[in-house]
């Protein structure tokens, strides 16, 4: 710890941004589950810790009049997992949140911390990309909104500039009432994913209305291809299309070898997990189509 190191708990977002903009080595502190772990490992020694704990309502989860759900940056994983206001494709968010780490980690970690940490094997980056979410950002220069797909830039890197923080994540409504499935493959329960797949599938009269499939753990950021997704719309869901889709996504992957699996292994897992996620989501759609409750 450096001698000049300080800790503060501002009560306004403006104050946080102003402190961050003046000091490139300052870090805001959310749940601490990634930041403090990195400090303990000697990988990071911030000059300032700026806790977001005292900012009013930053952890709120709110259903908006237009059907979207606004999740405050400080919302804990467990609160998001338990939120019952998600509908249709929005449910991919809670499906992913309940798979993050262990109970104690879900009591601590926040959605803002997870997406700003931007680990490509983490669960939220993949899920919010599949949900077509929008991240609201505030900086000393003003506010801006960025689509989840453009928020993640590289390994542990986001579009956030110095002095900017993520304030909330807005999950748009899904009129198609899609089914979701979050397929996470791990070597041990509660670990980060080797590969994960977030799938949202809406069908009506036997044809696909909504199709979004995003893969985590296979590149520097979540992998998604709207052009290849568009092929499915208005047609029945066919195995041969899924195989082609997986092959097309593979061209966008850039996996690494690490303790969770080799690059090759990840690429072998991916098509299997995509197909499994879509089959499970489709089974749910059939149940809701026939009027039964899942």
């Amino acid at each position: 710890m450096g001698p000049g190191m300080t800790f503060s708990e501002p009560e306004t977002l403006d104050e946080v941004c102003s402190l961050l903009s003046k000091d490139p080595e300052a870090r805001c502190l959310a749940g601490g589950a990634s930041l403090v772990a990195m400090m303990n490992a000697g990988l990071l020694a911030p000059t300032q810790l700026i806790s977001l704990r005292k900012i009013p309502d930053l952890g709120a989860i709110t259903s908006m009049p237009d059907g979207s759900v606004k999740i405050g940056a400080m919302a804990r994983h467990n609160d998001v997992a338990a939120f019952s206001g998600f509908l249709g494709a929005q449910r991919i968010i809670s499906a992913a949140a309940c798979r993050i780490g262990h109970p104690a980690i879900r009591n601590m970690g926040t959605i803002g911390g997870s997406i700003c940490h931007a680990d490509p094997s983490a669960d939220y980056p993949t899920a919010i990309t599949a949900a077509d979410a929008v991240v609201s950002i505030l900086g000393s220069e003003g506010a801006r909104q960025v689509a989840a797909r453009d928020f993640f830039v590289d390994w542990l890197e986001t579009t956030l500039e110095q002095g900017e923080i993520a304030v909330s994540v807005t999950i748009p409504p899904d009129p198609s009432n899609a089914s979701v499935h979050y397929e996470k493959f791990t070597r041990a329960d509660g670990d980060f994913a080797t590969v994960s797949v977030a799938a949202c599938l809406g069908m009506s009269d036997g044809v696909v209305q909504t199709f979004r499939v995003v893969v985590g753990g296979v590149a520097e950021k979540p992998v998604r291809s709207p052009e290849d997704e568009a092929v499915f719309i208005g047609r029945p869901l066919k195995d041969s299309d899924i195989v082609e889709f997986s092959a097309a996504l593979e061209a966008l992957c850039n996996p690494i070898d690490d303790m969770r699996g080799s690059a090759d292994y990840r690429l072998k897992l991916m098509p299997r997990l995509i197909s499994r996620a879509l089959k499970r989501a489709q089974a749910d759609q059939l149940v809701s189509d026939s009027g039964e409750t899942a």
Partner: protein
Amino acid sequence: MTESNDIPIRLTLNKSLKSVFCKPTETLLSLLRDGFGLTGSKRGCNQGLCGACTVLIDGKPMRSCLTIAATCNGRDVVTVEGLLENGKLSTMQQALVDSGGVQCGFCTPGVAIALTSLLREDPKPDRTKIREALSGHLCRCSGYIKIVDAAEAAAEKAGS
């Protein structure tokens, strides 16, 4: 020795109100062990992985090794020492002893905290629920079965 950037905090620790100064980056685990001499909570990994440092903060299990102590200002912290009831082991703690759920004991403080929290939320958990609550608590003596038995026994005892 306090320095100028030390932070004064007040917290409820095992039911008693404490005032203390902490360093800006000091973790709650360090404060508990080195500041208060409460060495029940263990430093297994200091990375959030092993669960041996788990304490209750405002009633919920959290990792003290990943909690900056200064963020505990105004909060309620309970360690394994604080689980004692009238100076005696709580039902959950006694069940861990009676069922053989304690071997070397290193994981036990975190396990006792996690299971105490589980039984408060769900007084009759099944074995799957118990195992879910134990996820993130590594027992290197690998006595998990006895630990699950202990949780079941404690639930039964509390319910009778």
